[in-house]
């Protein structure tokens, strides 16, 4: 079943004034798609999920499940969560502590008044699928984090929902478990083909899970696209810094223009600004970005080469993260190469560069991420 959100907004009123948690969101999620909503904490992604689940009523806008209107303030339609055939996994699992694992998983079926034999069969089937068959008699308090999470997923899947919602389901697991759980969720979703919406603040999770990702900030959707699109064509500085293992190097530079072409100046390096990016120049300034993994040490051939000064080296095992100073500009470089000293020769290529418009109060916009 596909999902459509049209001009969806949610405003919370508090003593401090009104907060636009979700601000005019338009989205279309395909049937069977694994869709990820990514954003920093407090960006409204959980509220958006709650709106889809029916745990919150929209302030304005409409939600469609397939052809059916599910919620609309204007048309006074609101289908309660129990009639939406959705399932949800919460960050803290939200298992019912007074019920055994079996009763927890059986709970949605029991509410539907399914008969007992069928419930037993369904619960055992889903427990088998998630490898928790030997835990069925245990209480939630006796389970480990990973097991609780499996139970929560089993409870969500047992009644074959048409939309599967996950609200940061992995953030309470330790790092190793998270990776294996991630793979499991992905293959499970592939197998079952349920339309899935997954909310996370972790871009690695988003990139590895999502068929498409929507990046959210301050209640607004900044960009929607496949992981590759977001990585290769970030729409603005925020997404450029948010997507990618290590935030992109970004520099506000002065622009010199002549008749035919424009150049950005990083110290004495003259970076060519392609003609199709020239509209981004504002007040003779532009932001140039380059990813740490696109900078090379001692390049044989590169469009631009400069000699920097090594400030700090973090060893990440196979790779090193090197902080390099070049005049007033500092670069982060991710490299496997170890042959460098105090002075370091670095190269990069034109095709790996990103260009953005310079925005006046960029610090606020980048949520504290720094641009040198």
């Amino acid at each position, binding site marked *: 079943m596909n999902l459509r959100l049209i001009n969806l907004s949610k405003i919370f009123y508090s003593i401090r004034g009104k907060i636009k948690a979700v601000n005019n969101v338009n989205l279309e999620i395909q049937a069977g798609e694994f869709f990820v909503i990514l954003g920093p904490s407090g960006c409204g992604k959980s509220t958006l999920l709650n709106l889809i689940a029916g*745990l919150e009523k929209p302030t304005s806008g409409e939600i469609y499940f397939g052809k059916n209107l599910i919620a609309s303030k204007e048309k006074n339609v609101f289908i309660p969560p129990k009639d939406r055939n959705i399932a949800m996994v919460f960050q803290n699992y*939200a298992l019912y*502590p*007074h019920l055994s694992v079996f009763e927890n998983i059986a709970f*949605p079926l029991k*509410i539907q008044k399914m008969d007992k034999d069928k419930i037993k069969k369904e619960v055992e089937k889903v427990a088998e699928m998630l490898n928790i068959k030997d835990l069925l008699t245990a209480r939630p*308090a006796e*389970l480990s984090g990973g097991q609780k999470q499996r139970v929560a997923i089993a409870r969500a899947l047992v*009644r074959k929902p048409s939309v599967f919602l996950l609200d940061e389901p992995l953030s309470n697991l330790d790092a190793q478990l998270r990776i294996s759980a991630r793979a499991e969720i992905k293959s499970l979703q592939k197998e079952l083909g349920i339309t899935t919406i997954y909310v996370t603040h972790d871009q690695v999770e988003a990139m590895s899970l999502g068929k498409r990702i929507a990046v959210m900030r301050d209640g607004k959707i900044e960009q929607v696209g496949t992981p590759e699109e977001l990585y290769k064509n970030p729409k603005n500085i925020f997404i450029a810094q948010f997507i990618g293992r290590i935030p992109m190097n970004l520099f506000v530079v002065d622009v010199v223009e002549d008749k035919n072409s424009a150049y950005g100046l990083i110290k004495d390096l003259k970076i060519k600004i392609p003609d199709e990016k020239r509209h981004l120049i504002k007040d003779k300034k532009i932001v140039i970005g380059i990813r740490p993994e696109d900078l090379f040490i001692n390049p044989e051939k590169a469009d631009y080469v400069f000699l920097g000064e090594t400030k700090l080296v973090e060893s990440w095992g196979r790779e090193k993260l090197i902080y390099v100073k070049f005049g007033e500009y500092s670069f982060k470089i991710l490299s496997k190469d170890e042959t460098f000293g105090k002075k370091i020769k670095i190269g990069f290529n034109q095709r790996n560069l990103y260009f953005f418009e310079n925005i006046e109060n960029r610090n606020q916009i980048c949520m504290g991420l720094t641009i040198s």
Partner: protein
Amino acid sequence: MKEEKLIKILFFIATLFVLSFCLIPFLYMLIISFCKSWDIFSLKEIEFTFSNYIKILKDPSLHCLDYIKNSLIISGISAIFSVFVATLGAYAISRLDFPFKFSILLFILASSMFPQISVIGFLFKLMKILNFINTYQALILPYISWSIPISLWIMVSYFSKIPKDLDKSALVDGCSWFQAFLKIILPLTKPGLVSAGLLSFLFSFNEFLFALILTIDYHARTVPVGIAMFQGLHGELPWGSIMAFTALSLLPVIIIVTLFQKHIMQGLTRGAIKE
């Protein structure tokens, strides 16, 4: 090592002191109720007997069993109603967003802090108009309203301990609001329900002033007033009978409290969420 021992000894002495301070009156009551003479210090006359108990149970003019029955019915109904109303109110307060929530809670608590004597005059007039004097409802109604604030506060603190994600989860799993409350939230607040219920029961069982003013005879009179009235009936103080009656009326209370207190256990919500 020495210090630990000293602390242990001091702790033991302190416990012993507090315990004896609390329990000696009970012991005194029990001993007197089984003695022929109430003068415990004239050792000669101490003699074990059931006569006090037999006397109060056999004498119909004393209405001891009526008082106990009245007390149990009035306290039971008050406790059940007070917890019922308080639970619904507390769930709303803990789950719904509305302005001045905390002020409302404080106001409710403040209203229970008025001395009882300040409303008794009005209450008497009201009950007289309603023709409720010397009936159960004359006591049940004020007892409910008097014990709701404490029940409400207990229940609010219990509900706020239960993570809201459990409600949400139940709603998504197909429950209506009421089903989510009944099947998920209420079972988890059982310790709160029991402690609120026991406290309101004990309040109603012990209450004296309202019972004294609003009842006339054994039709609605409760135990505390009944005990106080022993004196008037016979001129002198029949300590043996009074103590026997007190002990007798304590019996159902002790049974009820021991039956229910095992439900007041902690950690029922353990394992619901990851803290």
